[in-house]
């Protein structure tokens, strides 16, 4: 069934610098279960793009298969979207990005789509430092097939049917840091205040940005004993950093306390105003975050906030020395060497 939202918008709705209302960043009505964490993430994406004055058509929404991968239909309807095959969103996004390096690539995926069937492609898109934002809507289970455990389900987590998960859960944040990710964050779908600036920062980052968002499945994994339920996450959420995102050209008000606030400058000149809540951790030091993640795991805590950033990140097109003009805009003139050169090549083959 397809739901269509009314086009009518109140004339006094606030507009952003582009003259768009928030409505122009929305999508069609969600068909996910009422209360699904994924819908909150979609809402956060809409807010982030609206507030950042992003032109919707400059965003490419990429996804694989699963509940999470359906969500691009529910935000940014003026953007092209690509709902590809299960676990293969990274490769499709890589090709799309190589074809036009000037767009913003926003991939959404789930824990099954990323950590099981898509683990191979996930690992390789991270190590290639593809310029994209990769949001994992992580609920620890397979929703569309009725609640089987996924590879990110924590050891000992109890499923709705009462079974205990006896396998280790994959920590996508730690894994991606090991693989060379240049921006890694973790959040909770219920924490919009934290999630929106994280999405903004990720979209501004030049290179691969992971946001792993714990997003409870209200239907299959919100029971007592589950480590991905609303109650459990609220109770075990340990905020590592709180942040504000300061876009390019916006004046930075120097009223912050230097002993508490760290300013991280992004590739495009925007800033992250970061409030570090752990003295042992430095967002640009891999070892410190790996230790913090390890310790949190021991204590059954979920660390949220910006975890790691490499401000020297070099994204794939730069690594490949690709021309600045998007490749999809090149014409015969740049692409075809012509008949004279071909004759010369043939001469050498005689």
């Amino acid at each position, binding site marked *: 069934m*397809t739901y269509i939202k009314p086009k009518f918008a109140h004339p006094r709705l606030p507009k952003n610098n582009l003259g768009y209302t928030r409505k*122009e960043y929305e999508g069609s009505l969600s068909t996910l279960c009422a209360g699904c964490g994924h819908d909150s993430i979609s809402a956060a994406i809409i807010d982030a793009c609206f507030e950042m004055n992003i*032109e*919707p*058509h*400059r965003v*490419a*929404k990429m996804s694989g298969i699963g509940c999470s991968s359906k969500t*691009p*239909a529910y935000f940014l*309807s*003026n*953007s*092209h*979207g*690509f*709902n*590809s*095959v299960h676990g*293969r969103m*990274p*490769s*499709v*996004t*890589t*090709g*799309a990005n*190589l*074809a*036009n390096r*000037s*767009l913003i690539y926003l991939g959404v995926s789930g824990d099954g789509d990323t950590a099981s069937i898509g683990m*191979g*492609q996930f*690992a*390789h898109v991270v190590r*290639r430092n593809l310029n994209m934002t990769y949001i994992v809507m992580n609920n620890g289970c397979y929703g569309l097939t009725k609640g089987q455990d996924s590879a990110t389900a924590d050891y000992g987590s109890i499923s709705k049917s009462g079974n205990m998960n006896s396998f280790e859960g994959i920590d996508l944040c730690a894994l991606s840091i090991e693989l060379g990710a240049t921006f890694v964050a973790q959040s909770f779908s219920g924490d919009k205040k934290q999630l929106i600036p994280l999405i903004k920062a990720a979209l501004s980052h030049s290179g691969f940005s992971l946001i792993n968002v714990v997003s409870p499945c209200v239907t299959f994994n919100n029971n007592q004993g589950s480590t991905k339920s609303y109650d459990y996450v609220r109770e075990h959420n340990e905020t590592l950093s709180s942040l504000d995102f300061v876009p390019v050209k916006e004046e930075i008000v120097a009223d912050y306390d230097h002993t508490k606030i760290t300013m991280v400058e992004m590739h495009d000149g925007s800033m992250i105003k970061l409030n570090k809540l752990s003295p042992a951790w430095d967002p640009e030091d891999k070892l410190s975050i790996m230790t913090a993640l390890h310790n949190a795991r021991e204590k059954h805590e979920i660390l949220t906030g910006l975890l790691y950033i490499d401000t020297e990140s070099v994204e*794939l*097109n730069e690594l*490949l020395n*690709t*021309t*600045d003009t998007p*490749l*999809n805009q*090149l014409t*015969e003139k*740049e*692409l*075809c*060497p*012509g*008949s004279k*050169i*071909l*004759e010369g*090549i*043939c001469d050498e*083959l*005689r």
Partner: protein
Amino acid sequence: MSRVNDFVVRFANVNGTGSASANYLFAKSVFRMGVPVSAKNIFPSNIQGLPTWYEVRVSEKGYLGRKEGIDLMVSVNPQSFKKDIASIKSGGYFLYDSTKPLHDEFLREDIHFIGVPLMDICNREFTDPRQKQLFKNIVYVGAIARLLNIDTSVIEGLFAEQFQGKEKLIAPNVKALHLGSDYVKDHFTYPLEFHVEARDLVGDAIMIDGNSAAGLGAVYGGASVVSWYPITPSTSLVSAFEDYAKKLRKDPLTGKNNYSIVQAEDELAAIGMAIGANWNGARSFTATSGPGVSLMSEFLGLAYYSELPVVLVDVQRSGPSTGMPTRTQQSDFISAAYASHGDTKHVLLIPSTPTECFDMMADAFDYAEQLQTPVIMMSDLDLGMNDHMTTPFKWDDNRKYNRGKVLTADQLESLPSWGRYRDVDGDGIPYRTIPATHPTKGSYFTRGSSHDENAAYSEDSPTYVRIMDRLLRKLETAKKMIPAPQFYQEGKNSDTAIVFYGTSMHAAEEAIDILKNEGAPIDAMRLKSFPFCDEVGQFIEQYDNVFVIEQNRDAQMRSLLINELEINPKKLVKVLNYDGTPITADFILKNIHQHLFQPIN
């Protein structure tokens, strides 16, 4: 019967010893003397130490297919002596390294043995250990040059070209060449009864392998994003693209690349990237072999159903499974034609020569973008990795890439409404949009799930059927666009006919010629594409029996003909060569003769 310019030489080497370039030198020198030549590399799936062969057919008549029966075997590999000696035709010659005496068990009364002490000569004349090894190859090239009447100055000319910028290497190579040539002069009668005489029979032909030609064709065809995963025998296609692109696709001002190449983590990712790039409006392809096609199938189904262009090259090798990775076959036709689950059908292009690899590769992007569907070029190891004499490549500078039905911002602005999957023109091909074309118009959600004409998710049965039926209409349009078959005659001249495709062409053309000379001409058709154009069925309909010549076990093209055109299976006679070696005219003739109950001449 004159044996001038009509014989087969086979080289038996150990792989990884530098013999390939020496053997190529021999083939190229025959070509330079104006005599048609074809060379086949028969090599193991191994890096170093196993037997490898290089077979050169010299043919005054211009027959470029492989031929059974070896006239001269040049063997520097004692591992394979026994097999090599057994494979020589009665009356033929065996040239070997006589530094060590040949064991009695190898002797054959009916062939000639030519011993040249290759290792002794090299040990005596060269000091550098690497040169001692490498120049053994050049010494035997010198020896056979003398035996076969090849002008050493032609080979010296090739050295000069090969070692441009490394001129120091020319003198020792020339020395090695003459050591071999002089040894024969002093010890044997020459030339042999079969040998080369200079002619003017190659015209403006060039010599190149199909993979290099296809790589170059992709540069000319405007491919800008290439994703790939290494697999024999397709790897050299992407290498060729990269080599040509490095020279021909640099931005003159910045020195940056007007292309991107990514070595993917597997074939799934390779095709995924190519589809993503095409979705975003860049021409993109990947190349693989049979195992890769298996892995890419799911994605091919997505591209088919979501109607995205993508170009794939399948350089076929012997299957199933890992099969014989370095041996040729035409055994992926069914898996490529119907790749992926559900009802799918893909456009296939079937080149027979490097020139067709170049042309079809460039054209494939036009077809894929016009049809908004995958286009698969079906090459094979024989075509892809062996050097072939072929007509020179041509390019029309007025040619514009045909990007198909892609809407611009202005068109979107002026259209009252647009739906991604509406069949506006009745040819089954809808209009598509590229991301970021227009701020508020033309966006849609590309998906592999069932959708309606406006790209909205739909599980409505009539809608589903409408879209699936339109996809068939699109393939009808494809039939009028893709290359028509080649016919070898006007009208109908025989009761039986033969059908062939791809690298069976040279052997089949030779067989046609021989049948004609025998006074039993046979009509023939070469298939160049799938789905079959109307001419294919019309041709087959005319004959009582049609031989379908293929290089696979299961008669895959025959199955496709029966399935697509509803031809009576009894009418289509299988002629199947599937041992991993390229098919020969003798093999085709033997099968035709057997079927027609005629004695073999």
